């Protein structure tokens, strides 16, 4: 009713609760901001799009894993993944990602936890962890981070309670966006340093539009655990493009695991949304994650940001149509054309990689020495990294269509070079 709306618009915030820097529970914040809170809670929804969203798959809860609904298994959808990740925890359990509401339980109960003993570091991106870090560090965020990284996962797990909550993105006093994740603060510092800008401090130096990206870039990025301290590190020291990242890992002589069938020292890429988005035309045009994944919506007399973070394809009119005057059907078709091309090339690249793995495996079985395989294994590492960069990225190429296709083309070329090197090295040894 009109009276109510006029009220709302004059005073959009009900100061019901005094928010402080130690209130984790979103429900309390929701007293002041009920509209944002209502949408935030809707991240439990599960709806599939052609390549995204997620499907609610029922399961029988067990003691070890009490979840009664999970997302579909990507390994079952495409068993080739088990071959390219052979010997790594991902070959055991890997599912489609779903809404933010599930992040803490999905991490806690994934079978990857059974396959490998994980460190507390994991929680950086799966829990409301700002307050626990501050607590563990006696008010020093970085210290808390360092402390919790080194705990075993299930120790650290006891220190957190919620999935991502308001406090992880907002300053409780001003409601401004802020960065709460140490690995992102440090990652941006090393990235900017590589561009000649030293001592970059993201919280004081980023623009508002940048913050609408960075709050997501805290987690939707490629990462690794550095050294025995298991410090969460974003590999951006030489830049954000795939080539720079691999070159950084090569310099660090880092590997995620040794491939079970070939012995190659390989890497697994995880969700490089921020990195790939950066190479795309939307980034170049200043369009932020929040513009598409948290578009404005009208509630009564107000416009607010939709805190139901989800696939924009489930919300095309708000997510795309203010900027693009095409019909919903047409916009969906445009996205799916892009995704279809990416998916096709991704499949070619995956078949290619599996060919190389088989070749290496056969060579080993027929007695080739490790020496003869060195080059080919190096190419397997590269091909896997490039393929995974697109495969693990969750927009199926949409965030940067040409770049995604370029990366897959390079991946196929690495396989080719690997197969040739293997043939030559085997022949030379004959």
């Amino acid at each position, binding site marked *: 009713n009109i009276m109510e709306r006029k009220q709302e*618009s004059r005073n959009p915030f009900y100061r019901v609760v005094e928010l402080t820097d130690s209130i984790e529970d979103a429900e309390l914040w929701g007293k002041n901001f009920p509209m944002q809170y209502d949408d935030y809670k809707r991240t439990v929804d599960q709806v599939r799009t052609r390549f995204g969203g997620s499907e609610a798959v029922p399961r029988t809860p067990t003691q070890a894993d009490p979840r009664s609904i999970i997302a579909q298994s990507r390994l079952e959808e495409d068993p080739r993944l088990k071959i390219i990740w052979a010997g790594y925890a991902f070959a055991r359990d890997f599912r489609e990602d779903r809404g933010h509401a599930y992040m803490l339980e999905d991490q806690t109960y994934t079978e990857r936890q059974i396959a490998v003993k994980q460190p507390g570091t994991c929680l950086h991106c799966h829990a409301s962890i700002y307050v626990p870090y501050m607590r563990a560090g006696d008010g020093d965020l970085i210290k808390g981070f360092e402390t919790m990284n080194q705990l075993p996962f299930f120790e650290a797990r006891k220190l957190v309670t919620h999935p991502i909550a308001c406090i992880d993105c907002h300053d409780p006093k*001003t409601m401004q*966006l802020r960065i709460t994740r140490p690995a992102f603060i440090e990652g941006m510092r090393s990235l900017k340093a590589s561009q000649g800008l030293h001592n970059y401090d993201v919280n004081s130096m980023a*623009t*508002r*539009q940048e*913050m609408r990206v960075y709050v997501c870039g805290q987690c939707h990025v490629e990462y690794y655990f550095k050294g025995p301290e298991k410090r969460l590190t974003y590999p951006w020291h030489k830049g954000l493009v795939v080539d720079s990242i691999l070159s950084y890992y090569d310099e660090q002589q880092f590997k995620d695991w040794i491939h079970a069938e070939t012995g190659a020292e390989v890497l697994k890429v995880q969700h490089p949304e921020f990195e790939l988005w950066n190479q795309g035309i939307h980034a170049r045009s200043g369009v932020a994650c929040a513009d598409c994944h948290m578009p404005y919506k009208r509630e009564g007399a107000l416009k607010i940001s939709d805190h139901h973070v989800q696939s924009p394809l489930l919300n095309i009119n708000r997510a795309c149509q203010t900027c693009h005057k095409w019909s919903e059907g047409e916009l969906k078709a445009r996205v799916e054309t892009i995704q279809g091309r990416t998916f096709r090339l991704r499949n070619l690249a995956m078949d290619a990689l599996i060919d190389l793995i088989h070749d290496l495996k056969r060579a080993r079985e027929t007695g080739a020495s490790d020496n003869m395989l060195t080059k080919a294994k190096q190419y397997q590492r590269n091909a896997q990294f490039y393929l995974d960069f697109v495969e693990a990225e969750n927009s199926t190429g949409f965030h940067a269509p040409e770049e995604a296709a370029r990366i897959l083309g390079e991946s196929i070329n690495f396989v080719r070079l690997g197969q040739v090197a293997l043939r030559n090295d085997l022949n030379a040894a004959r």
Partner: protein
Amino acid sequence: MWSYRMLVIVLNVLTGVGIGVGSYTFIYAKGGSYLTNDPAACANCHIMNEHYTAWIKSSHRSVAVCNDCHTPDGFLGKYMTKASNGFWHSFAFTTGRFHEPLQIKEHNREIAEQACRKCHQDIVIAIEGPHREIGELSCLPCHQSVGHF
């Protein structure tokens, strides 16, 4: 600073110091139409035709005229902007020295940005409110076509 420069220009035009091509055009091409509120008057310059027709097609044709978006609030600001734009555009038009397609200049863009708030302050208060310190939200990237489709 800005308004001082404009004031000089206005004075120039009014006192005849600026007589010459600029003023000639200003009169011949009905540059004075800058001083009215009638959008059709802007289209006196054929160069404004496209913007005029694009405005006719836009969602705002029945709620906002050119001056609602392209002049700031308040009497002085409004006529300063009009006189300044009127003079410079007449000058540019006659000499043919302007970038095509026309590109709104930073200062005029800022006026248009503020114009949105003149009418929509209420509805955007929530998304604007808490963030003033780290920079204002820009409406135009998303609503580029409200004034001109």
